[in-house]
């Protein structure tokens, strides 16, 4: 397995005045192999989206680096960098309602990438757009329509066509299904995995729906307050979580099975994710952790591999 995208101690802080900083992404090292789907899960405010955006250059990096095929990418992108990298890395956004320009037709939205980044002529662009509309399950005739004429699921398909028409190698999917209905979620997931197989895509799949992430991903990374707490094979992390936070996150996810839900004790934890402005010393999860020890409040646990190198956990229990 060769690494396609690699982040090394990547951090992204936002200055919010009065010498205060939001530690949105703190020291994350993650390797994504070629043709792999890595699921990134965590609560809102844990920095998942910021991490995804920083990786593809929509945010300048505060420190650390991102490598793409071994090449170190610039700390902050200039227009020329976007021009060069847009055909290799793309992003599918969370909200299909606000991420499409309401004043552009679907044809214009999908063709924009091609017009900017390829040398194709007008008629060729048009036929490519038609081809992609069909590929994502829409009709070629939809080209002249506007976003408001489409349902959420259809818009998300438009977002997928827009991102994939340049045939990028790496795509960040930022909660692509969380705004959609259950029956439509499955349609979009199946479309993504089909396109992944035919195009050989590598995906960073950001979501908060754990059971869906397990279905989609090869590996799963769990994020809490800006840092990774656990990384491993999706099934192993889901069925045998090691970090107390992962355990709680998975336990909180209600299963569509009444008998199981009745027999299961409540796993709700007290408290909420703390502010990323004043990050607590030691382990960031210590104040909510049911297995907290004295050392947790003092020393920050590092992400260390367990017996098999596949699983990494940042917890003093291991």
């Amino acid at each position, binding site marked *: 397995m060769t690494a396609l995208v690699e982040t090394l101690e990547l951090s992204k802080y936002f200055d919010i005045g009065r010498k205060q900083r939001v530690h949105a992404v703190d020291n994350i090292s993650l390797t994504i192999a070629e043709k792999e789907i890595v699921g990134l899960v965590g609560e*809102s405010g844990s920095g998942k989206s910021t991490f995804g955006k920083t990786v593809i250059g929509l945010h300048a990096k505060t420190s650390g680096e991102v490598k793409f095929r071994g090449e170190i990418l610039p700390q902050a992108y200039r227009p020329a960098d976007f021009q060069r990298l847009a055909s290799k890395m793309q992003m599918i956004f969370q909200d299909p309602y606000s991420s499409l320009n309401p004043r552009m037709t679907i044809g214009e939205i999908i063709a924009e990438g091609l017009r900017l980044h390829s040398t194709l002529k007008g008629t060729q662009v048009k036929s490519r757009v038609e081809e992609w509309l069909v590929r994502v399950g829409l009709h070629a005739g939809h080209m002249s329509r506007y976003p408001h004429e489409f349902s959420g699921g259809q818009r998300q398909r438009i977002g997928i066509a827009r991102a994939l028409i340049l045939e990028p190698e790496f795509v960040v999917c930022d909660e692509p299904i969380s705004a959609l*209905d259950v029956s439509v979620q499955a349609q979009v997931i199946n479309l993504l995995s089909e396109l992944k197989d035919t195009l050989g895509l590598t995906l960073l799949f950001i979501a908060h729906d754990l059971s869906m992430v397990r279905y989609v991903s090869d590996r799963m990374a769990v994020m809490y307050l800006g840092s990774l707490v656990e990384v491993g094979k999706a099934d192993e992390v889901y069925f045998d979580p090691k970090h107390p936070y992962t355990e709680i996150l998975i336990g909180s996810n209600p*299963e569509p099975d009444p008998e199981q839900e009745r027999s299961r004790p409540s796993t709700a*934890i*007290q408290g909420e994710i703390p502010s990323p402005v004043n990050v607590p010393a030691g382990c960031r999860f210590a104040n909510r952790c049911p297995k907290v020890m004295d050392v947790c409040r003092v020393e920050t646990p590092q992400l260390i591999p367990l017996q098999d190198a596949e699983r990494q956990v940042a917890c003093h229990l291991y």
Partner: protein
Amino acid sequence: MTTAATGLQHTPSLLEVEDLAVEFSTYGGIVRAVRGVSFAVERGKTMAIVGESGCGKSVTVQAMMGLTPMPPGRITSGSARLNGVEVLGRNIINGKDIRGSQIGMIFQDPMTSLNPTMTIGDQIAEPLQVHRGYSHKRAFAEAIELLSITKIPEAAKRARQYPFEFSGGMLQRAMIAMAIACKPSILIADEPTTALDVTIQAQILDLLQDLQKETGMAIILITHDLGVVARMADDVAVMYAGKVVEQGGVDDIFYRSAHPYTLGLKLAMPTNDPSKQHKLNPIEGSPPDLFAPPIGCGYCPRCPYSMKICDVKDPDILPVGKKHESRCWLQHPQAITVPDELYCGEKA
């Protein structure tokens, strides 16, 4: 005959909704959002209404609460009786507004449902002042008490804060505190946890269950998450295209699904069974356009088992078991071939 109708002759339920229909006039024509919905809610039980966006689940409860904007909305038929008293179309019963006193409601998005210019404590105190005639001082003291019941730490301090100082989970707790202030007999929760994280969702669901145990109120839970249904519900109504397509006890719905749509929803959900193959079964297509509702069964174009009759005639809701019914032609006694995965009662 529907359950609501048969139930009436024996033990009246707390809330009985019968044949409710709501439509909206828009520039594009008339949207028939709810097309004849009947269900009953029992005392102290949780009734879940499940369905996709646009199926009419929110419109149904808004009509009951008198929250349907009229115009453009119009309740064209039906009745909703709370303890035998008709509530549709009138909010004042025995000189009292039922909204906020006998029926409490919490909404999906706590950030936009609260008034940003009033303190949390004042907002919770408001229903007590309006419905109970409490003085502001007494109502505010009660509001602090309610905030601690909904497990908000430092309630006295928090009551003087504004909504922007609260997190999403805390705001939802504050909204629950407001909804239960007058001890309603029914709490309507319209997608109460959709905007929240799973960990916070678990906290809110636990809180609702605890409150139900203490106060004995009934809950109508509107959701599209089958996991939440499994966790919370006693009874379930599955809605599609403005109609209830299947209803029954929670076990009936999950283990003895009698409508192809319920079956489809279940198959589209990821399960936690490690042996299952990594492939989801989506329901192809999308729900029908309610500007021109289909003459036949609304689910017919997406249904893998559709027959000739489904396209031309809408089925009645047919009994499948005790308090379990399904709106599907396959449940008709004369249906010839019935797929194995569809439950059709204990027939010989």
